[in-house]
């Protein structure tokens, strides 16, 4: 399969099938954008992210020995930040320098009356974990344990 960036019409994130859990995947024109969209995919498992307003931001920073591990670190840091702040996130910004990631997540506090909450993600895992690039399209994916 060949990936091609086709601009606005292309979906930027998605979830995919796994027998017991759920796969999440983000696409981007750079690895950073793929990480940002991967985070959207993960939060879309928990909530309808279109309903989550980007009102408040939280900072996340992490490091890892390679890009694959860095993607999992980024997602797991977002999960603990989301949990501790009682927030859901819908918009992300990532900057990667070597093994270091600095990121921001925008969202709002959970409002059970307005947000349609779905399944809790326990963790991002190393299963089917892959960060790669072809034809200038970056893909970041893994299975999340729910």
């Amino acid at each position, binding site marked *: *399969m060949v990936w091609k960036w086709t601009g606005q019409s292309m979906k930027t994130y998605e979830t995919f099938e796994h027998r017991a859990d759920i796969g999440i995947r983000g696409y981007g024109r750079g690895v950073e954008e793929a990480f940002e969209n991967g985070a959207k995919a993960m939060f879309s498992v928990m909530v309808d992210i279109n309903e989550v307003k980007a009102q408040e931001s939280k900072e996340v920073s992490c490091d890892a020995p390679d890009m694959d591990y860095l993607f999992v670190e980024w997602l797991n840091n977002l999960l603990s930040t989301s949990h501790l702040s009682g927030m859901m996130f819908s918009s992300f910004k990532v900057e990667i320098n070597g093994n270091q990631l600095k990121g921001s997540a925008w969202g709002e506090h959970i409002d059970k009356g307005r947000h349609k*909450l779905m399944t809790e993600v326990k963790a991002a895992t190393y*299963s089917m974990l892959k960060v790669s690039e072809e034809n200038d399209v970056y893909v970041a994916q893994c299975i999340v344990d729910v």
Partner: protein
Amino acid sequence: MTGIPLECKVRNMDIKSLKKITDYIWEMPAEGEMRVPGRIFASEALVEELDDNVVKQIRNVACLPGIQMASIAMPDAHWGYGFPIGGVGAFDPNEGGIISMGGIGFDISCGVRTMRTGMTREDIQPHLEKLSDRLFAVVPAGLGSEGKIRLNEQQIDDVLSGGARWAVSKGYGLKEDLMYIEEGGVMSGADPSNVSSIAKQRQFREVGTLGSGNHYLEIQYVEEVYDEHIAAVYGLYKDEVVVSVHCGSRALGHQIGTDYLKTLAEASRKYNIAISDRELVCAPIDSPEGRKYFSAVCAGINCALANRQVISHLVREAFSGVIPKARISMLYDVSHNTCKVEEHIVGNKTKRLYIHRKGSTRALGPGRKEIPEEYRSVGQPVLIGGTMGTCSYILAGTETGMAHAFGSACHGAGRALSRTQAKKKWRGDALLRDLAGKGIIIRAHSYSGAAEEAPGAYKDVTAVVEATHNAGLAKKVAMVKPMACIKG
């Protein structure tokens, strides 16, 4: 784009690659890097349904240092993280044995607790709606829910050291409950200083919450008794109402998993342990990293035991408000995502082994010192949760299970359809109406979550339990059916 697995391809395994030992035991010969054979306990029909990822995972586990006897898969085995879910591996620290994240999972000490009510189906039925509403109101469940107990870091440390004993000391439940929990309600090797501050903070408001996904609280009645003697020893009789709780160590356990995934990835490199799958990240049991991880796992187990103990207290509160004469007493509490130190006979030697059970219920046979005295002569109660709307089983540990599977049994039905497939196939609200039509009351926080857990999305729990019974891993004692189910 070569090398990227695009979709989770599930291919059924080739049964011809297995050696049939009995109708319910299948062996995968030790080849290549495998230190021990693989052993699958299942009927032919269940073996044929296994996907080849499970076979790969059984083989990968068989390659780990210090593994004893066999890399084992239960009848409900399915594709997991490193180990299959429904996987068992025993490791000897004196033979370079390892402790692996893949053999425990993120939801440390997820398990089932069943309590008797002393009431019959007839007694409860008229109050069922009110009781379900009450339970739904008092037991926090679902994503974003918070418990009524607020703790600080010092208090969380007490939970992590004290387990269910901490809960009882704070007035949640009765002292006699503790006897019927594995390890008397507390794991001794826990060291809270090996649990990160973030993990602890995530638990400040979560003690006594059910969670989401496949976790539940059910009011059930005994539909059928298979073994009158053992049932009598367990205090079970036909039409008796019991309450079962399925949940784990909540966010604290998940965060321990996340934190140590990184530590163990580094340890695997440091100790040069050849792992064929990075989800099997591990450390030698007898290393600083291995000891630290084990003590954190024990803390996670205590967190789960405290959690189920507090929920039991809430169940008692709900019952006392609706049916004051109900007497809630513990049948048993047993986990299915753990690593525990146990003595087992391998060859002719008694060894102290680290038994990993990932989606496998401990099922100790008669006579073991770990079993409460009252039950010791008949074997440990083994609690197998079904899916909402089907049925659950109570079994007893056996000698055969001790000899062939380190005293382990299945843990549930195991998924047959993915969550996405389930959501496409069933609508949450229609599903709940359908179950209501069968007389089963469902109270759920999320419709789509309920659809993901539709009974049809799981393998037939009865087939899994039959295979467990016929393989001799555990003996069927009773079957219970749901009357009401509370879900996240």
